[in-house]
C-alpha cells in the first residue's frame, strides 16, 4: 500500500467522527492532555503532517522553518485540515512551533487557537514544574470553556481517563510484546492502531486495540512468553531497564528507530518498501508519536484532575525539547543492551533543532554500547524516499542483514 493509502486508512475513525458531527480540537504536540479536551466534550485529534501539499507557506514562513510546521501551515492555507473547532499548540517546546503559533494567530485570526505552555525543566527535584503545569492546564480548561462554551464535566473526564488508561496499557503491552516476539504483530499494524487512536480517541478504536491486545496475549501465553514481556513492560514503564529479566531473542535482526515528530507509519512504509526485509526487524521505536505518546503514565482518577494530568505529562518519556539529555542517553544505552538491539535508525526531521542536536549524542551513546547507527533525514513528503531506502538497505547490509 502507498504511504498515502496507509495514512488514509488510519484516519478513517476521524472521518467517521466528523461525519457524525463530533466536534474536534486539533493538537500538534505529542504530550497533550487528551483527557482535558475530552472532559470538555470535544474529541482531540492529532494533526499530522501529510505528503502531497508542498506549498502555501512561502508568504509566512522561511524555508528554514522545520518541514513539519511548513507542512501543517500548507495544509491550513490549502484548506486541507479536517474541520476543527479549535487548535491546540504547545508553547516552550521548540522555536519553530513557538513562532508558528504566533504566525498562525495573525494569519488565521478567525481560527480558535489555544496554547499550552510547558515547563522545560524535568530534573529540578522540586514541585515547581508540576505546580506551574497544573495552573497552565486549569487556565487552558477555563479558556476552552469561555471560548467554546463547553464546561469541563467530571463524567466526561472520568470516561476519558478510563478510555486513555486502557489505550495506554494495551498499547504499552503491544510495544513490550513486539520486543520479545516481533512477528506477533507487525510494526505497521501497531503504528496504525496507535495512530488511529491519536487521530480519534474514541471507544470503538480503543476496543479494536483491546481486541488485538487480547489476541496477542493469547498467542504469547501459549508460547510461555508473558513473564518476560511483563518484566520488559515494567522496565519501559519505569524507564529503568536494569531489572529486566534476561531473555533470548528470536533469531533475526533487531533494530530500534529513534527520533522526534516523525511519523511511525512513514518509517514502517519505508522499511516495508525495501526488498527482502519487512518491518519485523523493527523491534521498537522511541518516536514522539509512537513510544513517547504511548508510555506516558495513565492518570490516577482519584486525584485532582489538573494535578494528575500535569504529573502524567511530566512523567512521560523525555523529548529532546526538554531538559535531560544525559538521562535520555543513559536510558538508551541500557535499553539497547537489555533488549538486544543490533542497530539504530536515527530519524531527523529536516530543519528540526531538537532532532538534529540529539542525533550526534545518540550516535555517541550507541557507539559506546557497541551499536551501529544510520541517520535518516526525513520530511513529511518522504521526498527523498528512494535515497532513504538505499541508505537503510546499505545499513542493513553492513549489519549482515539483507
Amino acid at each position: 500500500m502507498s504511504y498515502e493509502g496507509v495514512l488514509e486508512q488510519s484516519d478513517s475513525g476521524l472521518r467517521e467522527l466528523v461525519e457524525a458531527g463530533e466536534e474536534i480540537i486539533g493538537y500538534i504536540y505529542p504530550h497533550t492532555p487528551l483527557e482535558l479536551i475530552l472532559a470538555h466534550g470535544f474529541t482531540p485529534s492529532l494533526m499530522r503532517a501529510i505528503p502531497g501539499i508542498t506549498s502555501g507557506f512561502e508568504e509566512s514562513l522561511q524555508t528554514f522553518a522545520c518541514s513539519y510546521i511548513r507542512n501543517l501551515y500548507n495544509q491550513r492555507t490549502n484548506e486541507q485540515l479536517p474541520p476543527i473547532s479549535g487548535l491546540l499548540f504547545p508553547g516552550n517546546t521548540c522555536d519553530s512551533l513557538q513562532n508558528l503559533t504566533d504566525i498562525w494567530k495573525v494569519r488565521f485570526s478567525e481560527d480558535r487557537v489555544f496554547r499550552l505552555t510547558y515547563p522545560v525543566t524535568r530534573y529540578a527535584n522540586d514541585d515547581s514544574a508540576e505546580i506551574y503545569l497544573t495552573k497552565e492546564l486549569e487556565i487552558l480548561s477555563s479558556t476552552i470553556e469561555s471560548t467554546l462554551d463547553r464546561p469541563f464535566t467530571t463524567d466526561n473526564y472520568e470516561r476519558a481517563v478510563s478510555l486513555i488508561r486502557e489505550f495506554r496499557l494495551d498499547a504499552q503491552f503491544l510495544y513490550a510484546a513486539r520486543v520479545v516476539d516481533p512477528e506477533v504483530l507487525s510494526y505497521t499494524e501497531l503504528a496504525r492502531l496507535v495512530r488511529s487512536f491519536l487521530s480519534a480517541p474514541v471507544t470503538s478504536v480503543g476496543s479494536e486495540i483491546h481486541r488485538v491486545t487480547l489476541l496477542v496475549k493469547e498467542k504469547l501465553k501459549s508460547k510461555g512468553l508473558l513473564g518476560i514481556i511483563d518484566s520488559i513492560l515494567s522496565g519501559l514503564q519505569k524507564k529503568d531497564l536494569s531489572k529486566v529479566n534476561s531473555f533470548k531473542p528470536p533469531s533475526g535482526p533487531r533494530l530500534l528507530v529513534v527520533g522526534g515528530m516523525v511519523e511511525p507509519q512513514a518509517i514502517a512504509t519505508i522499511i516495508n518498501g525495501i526488498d527482502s526485509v519487512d518491518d519485523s526487524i523493527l523491534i521498537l521505536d522511541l518516536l514522539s508519536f509512537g513510544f513517547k505518546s504511548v508510555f506516558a503514565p495513565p492518570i490516577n482518577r482519584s486525584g485532582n484532575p489538573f494535578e494528575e494530568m500535569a504529573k502524567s505529562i511530566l512523567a512521560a518519556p523525555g523529548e529532546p525539547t526538554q531538559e535531560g539529555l544525559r538521562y535520555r542517553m543513559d536510558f538508551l544505552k541500557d535499553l539497547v543492551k537489555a533488549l538486544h538491539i543490533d542497530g539504530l535508525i536515527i530519524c531527523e526531521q529536516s530543519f528540526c533543532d531538537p532532532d538534529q542536536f540529539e542525533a550526534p549524542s545518540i550516535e555517541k551513546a550507541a557507539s559506546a554500547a557497541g551499536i551501529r547507527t544510520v541517520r535518516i533525514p526525513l520530511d513529511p513528503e518522504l521526498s527523498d524516499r528512494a535515497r532513504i531506502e538505499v541508505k537503510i538497505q546499505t545499513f542493513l547490509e553492513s549489519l549482515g542483514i539483507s
Partner: protein
Amino acid sequence: MTEMKKEEKVYRQLESNKLLQQIMFQNMLMGHQASEENRLAWVTSGFPVEIPVAMDVGVSYPEQYGAIVGSQKVGPEVCGYAEDIGYSQELCSYARASIGSVENPDNSPMEGLPKPQALLAGNNICGTVLRWYDAISEQTGAPVFLFDTPPIEDEQPDHHKEYVRRGIERLVAFLGTTFNKTLTDERMQEVADLSSKALGLWTKSLTACKTSPSPLNCADRFLAMGPVVSMRGTELIIDFYQSLLDEVEMRVKEGLGAIRDEKIRLLWDNIPPWHSIFKFFNGLAKRGVVFPADTYTHAWSGKIEGDDLFGSVVSIYSNVYLNKGLNAKIDKMCKMIKDYNLDGFVMFSVRSCKRYSLGQLVSKEIVAERTGVPGVVIEGDMVDSRVYNEAQIQTRVDALLEMFM
C-alpha cells in the same frame, strides 16, 4: 589603503573603542583566570548573569565567541569542526562555532573559550540554547543548569513568575554546591546597582540616536554592547559606558553623525552578519544610510531594582524581547520607527535563528502597514558565510533604497 581612506571619510570612528578593546581583553584574561581557579561558567546572553557575578563565579559568553568567529571570517571552518562530528549545518551557527571550537581549539580563534566548570543556559532567547549547552556538556563534562522562562504572550501571569523565581532559587543552590560559594544580600545589591548603572548609561547612548544625524550606527552599537552583555554587574565597564556616552553627547551637541552624510535612517532587525559587518554597514554609509536603532542591541535594557531583587530579576529576564510574542515584537519595531524617526527597515532573516527570524515575513507586512514606511527582508547567516549571498542581498537592499530616491 585607498578603500580605508574612503571609509574613514564616510564613517567616524569612536574614540571610546580603545577603551572597549582594553576591557574586552581584560575580560578574556579574567575568564582564563576563573577557569584556572575552577570557577568559570559559560552563560547565554539572556541569562541573569548578576547572580553568578555576585557569587564570584567568572563568566564567558559563547555567543560572543561566535561573533568573534564570524568577524574573523572563519565561521565555515570552525562550524565545520562541529559538522565533522555530526552537528547539522542547519543548526545555529553560534552553537556550531562553540561546539566546533571545543572540538578543535588549536584551529579556532583564541584557542576557543576557557574551559567551563558549569554551563548556565537561559531559554528566554530560544530553545536552542539548552540543546547546545547539553552538547557542550557532553564534550567538556561541565554540568548544565537550565533557567527556564516560559515565553510570555501578554502580561506575565503569577504562576509563571513563581515558577521562574523557583528557578532562581535553584540557580543559587546550584552555584553554591558547584562552586562552594554563597550569595549575600549586600553583594547582590552591589552587583544589581552596577548592572543598572551600566544599563542606564548604555540606554542613554542608545536613545541619543533619536537625534539626527545619529551619533551611532549599527556596527558601533553591535561592538559597544559587548561589555553590557558579558560584564553586566562589574565595576570594570562603567568607565567605558560613561566615556561612550560622553562621546555620543559630544557628537549630538556638535551635530556630528556616525556617518558623514546622513540621508536615510533605517531600523535593523536581528543579529548582524558578523563576517561582513563593516562591509555591509560602511557600504551603506557611503550611500548616506545610517541605522540609528535596531532590535538587537536594545534587548539589554532592564534594570534590577527595588526591594525585591529576585522579583525584579524574574520580571526582567522573562520579559526579554525574544521571550515575547510576535505582537510585542511588531509593537516594539513600530515604536522604534516612530521614536527614532526612521524612513524604513531592514530585516535580516538569520537561518541560524528560528526564534528571531520566523515571523519576520509577517511582521514585515504589518510594520510597513502600520508605520507607512517600507522594509525589506534579506536572508543569510551571522557566522556562517556559506549561506550569505552578498549579491542577492545587495539587490534587495538596492530595491529598498530606490524607494527613497
